[in-house]
């Protein structure tokens, strides 16, 4: 089974996608839309989602992977990147998958900021996912931005023999400042503003789909958000999941790029 790379979406905002057709597809089967993370996390998980898509296709699950505008292979500059546009990209991708797998129940598998965009996109009613699988969603934009900054400073420290300490000093001086760049990706002013305003209250789930949240043990922030959604009688379940994937590192020996545990967990998450 050969994956098919193509462009889709409106002419003014083309998006790159790669479609993995299902082997022996039947009407009513499941199809999966992968919502990738932002920046370096997106590059880091490319291979994982490629292998996941191949595995799903072999199991009869059509899968569409895509890159948000200004990321990966999609056109656009990073300075154009912001949540509203990416939310629309996700809905375009959903419509494209619906066109290619018309009778399928569509599940969105989102990771990190991709999971957050999935929550935002599922609320607008334009697209109809049957289930959201949210792998370590970003619930607190400021906390996420700070973590990106810390990882950026750590990467500079690790790579240079004599690192530019201005990065570290800036982090110490203004720990809550929103970064203009992180790990090789620029953050547009609008994205910085949106991340600054992103809090648990801005991510209410709907009852139009069920939701499975995967988060590492000890992530109380995400657990609390999921509990709040349950208290609103939303069909959401939280499952703890520990894995060996380093979200932000470069590929290097002895660092798992496609941890088998993550593959198995995500595949199982489609049905449980």
């Amino acid at each position, binding site marked *: 089974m050969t994956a098919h790379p193509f462009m889709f979406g409106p002419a003014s905002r083309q998006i790159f996608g790669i479609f993995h057709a299902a082997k022996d597809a039947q009407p009513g089967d499941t199809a999966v839309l992968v919502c990738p993370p932002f920046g370096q996390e997106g590059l880091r998980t490319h291979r994982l989602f490629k292998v996941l898509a191949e595995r799903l296709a072999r199991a009869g699950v059509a899968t569409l992977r895509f890159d948000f505008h200004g990321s990966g292979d999609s056109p656009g500059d990073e300075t154009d990147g912001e949540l509203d546009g990416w939310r629309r990209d996700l809905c375009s991708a959903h419509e494209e998958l619906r066109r290619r797998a018309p009778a399928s129940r569509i599940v969105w598998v989102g990771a990190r900021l991709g999971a957050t965009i999935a929550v935002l996109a599922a609320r607008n009613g334009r697209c109809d996912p049957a289930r959201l699988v949210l792998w370590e969603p970003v619930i607190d934009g400021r906390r996420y931005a700070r973590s990106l900054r810390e990882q950026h400073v750590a990467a500079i420290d690790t790579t*240079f023999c004599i690192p530019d300490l201005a990065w570290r000093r800036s982090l110490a001086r203004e720990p809550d400042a929103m970064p203009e760049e992180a790990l090789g990706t620029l953050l547009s002013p609008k994205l910085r503003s949106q991340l600054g305003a992103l809090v648990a209250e801005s991510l209410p789930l709907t009852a139009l789909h069920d939701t499975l949240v995967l988060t590492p043990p000890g992530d109380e922030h995400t657990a609390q958000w999921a509990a709040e959604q349950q208290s609103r009688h939303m069909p959401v379940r939280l499952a703890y999941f520990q894995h060996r994937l380093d979200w932000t590192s470069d590929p290097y020996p002895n660092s798992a790029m496609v941890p088998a545990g993550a593959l198995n967990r995500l595949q199982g998450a489609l049905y449980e």
Partner: protein
Amino acid sequence: MNDATQNPVRFGAGNSLVGMVTMPTQQVAAPVACLMFNMGANHRVGPRRINVKLAHALAAHGMASLRFDLGGVGDSDAFDSAHDLQTRSVHDLQAAMDLLESMLGIRQFVIVGMCSGVEHAVSAAAADTRVVALSLFDGFAFPERRARWERTLRRALAAPAHPSFPGKAKRWLLRHLTGNPSAKPLPGFLTEKQPPEIRAAWFGATMKRLVERKVALQLLYSGSLHVCDRGLDQLGALGREPFAKALQYQFMRNVDHTFCTAEGQLRYMQTVGDWAMACARSASAERPSPSPCTSPSPATAAAERPLRGAYASQ
């Protein structure tokens, strides 16, 4: 981005390779196109998406490009298992040239190779006369004693105050004292290791032939990997060879190996982009119709055979 159109493609043996052709929209494409591919295990967009950014910049100046995944890397399938990695990579690069030749009629190419990709780029240039220019980032390096000592001394002086020193020291101790296999780097990440003298001999001989063939050569070295440089330091004894005068050599002190900062990305793209466009202008003026790939004589074929594992991670 209105300066370019993007065309996803599958090509190569068994349609196993996946890539993206980027073409200029505002002007006729230059008669030289650029090829970009994987650095290590990064997929075709390159570390920090640098290949996409470079492709857009080149398209804005009128140069078409193809970025793609070698077989078995990124989205490409591992179709050819009959040859070693180096030979497969040359075949893949030649398939990329064939594609652009059939799509756009372009028969001259600049190859941009980074890190592990440098060896593949050099081997492809040696094997195929359609390659008129090579940009090589953090590839072959043979620093001599003085340069090695200076690098080591600078690292040692910086180490105690270095924020990541405790972590690095712990990993070094684990690797050297406990014999913990999980702390040891894998041998020849994505390549096979070869003795330095064999790599240097092959690299020197190939560079000499490429210079004689008037292939433009740009050698770039990052400050993060190589620390310091007093001019051609990374070439060692090869820097004193006559062919070295024809190289465009640059040590990029503020650029790191994987382009972690926007400043580093900008410097790299400016350096490579300007040079590639200059090569395109020069090649189109001097070599309006290069001869297609021809079979080399047996002696040349042996000398130009890709070196297996010529690159070793540093």
